[in-house]
């Protein structure tokens, strides 16, 4: 059995594609969906912000103000939970014994 540094480099290079993201996952579909989700999240925040402003200046009734704030709270909570999960998974990978 020949163990040489060149072999190790070749072996490493041959396994590298395994860790690269698959193009059909990372390209249009999944990345696009994530971007879309964050876009709708930002839109939600913006909408509730304008409703809150209208509520302060007397343009909107209190029901819609409460609704906008509750909706924003839920959206932020969902985003924070997903972010926590992603960070946790990343840290789990980093802790993997090599």
């Amino acid at each position, binding site marked *: 059995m020949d163990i040489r540094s060149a072999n190790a480099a070749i072996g490493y290079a041959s396994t590298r594609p395994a860790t690269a993201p698959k193009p059909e996952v990372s390209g249009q579909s999944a990345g696009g969906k994530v971007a879309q989700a964050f876009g709708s999240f930002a839109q939600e925040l913006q909408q509730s912000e304008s409703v809150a402003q209208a509520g302060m200046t007397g343009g909107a*009734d209190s*029901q*819609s103000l*409460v*609704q906008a704030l*509750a*909706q924003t709270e*839920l959206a932020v*909570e*969902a985003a924070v*939970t*997903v972010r*926590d*999960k992603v960070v946790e998974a990343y840290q789990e990978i980093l802790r993997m014994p090599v």
Partner: protein
Amino acid sequence: MSDLFNILSLSSSAMAAQADRLRHVSENIANADTPGYQRKTAPFEQVVEQGQKTGAVQSGPVELDQTPVRKVFDPGHPMAGEDGYYDSSNVDIMVELADAREAQRSYEANLKMFDQARQMSTSLLELLRR
């Protein structure tokens, strides 16, 4: 998740409609002794967006109650006629009170639905956090 968000907006529209209804009731009670005042009502209607019913509710255009106004005997009243009667409003305080109580109960029911939807989505997210 979007269903729960829909519940929030539907309950909010219903609460706004009930608040509008209560405003008309308070207008009627305030004008119960105004001569010639006709009771106002605003029947609810479904919200239609782009030809589709969204399930939300809103109070429709104001209608005036056409029941004849009360004749009150008070010869000293400046608006009294020859016979000593003048036209008062057609507001019945008892009807208005019942309407106000109904609006309050309906508002509470919608508030409960709002709170329940919020609690449901919060506990759903709580599941991910553990």
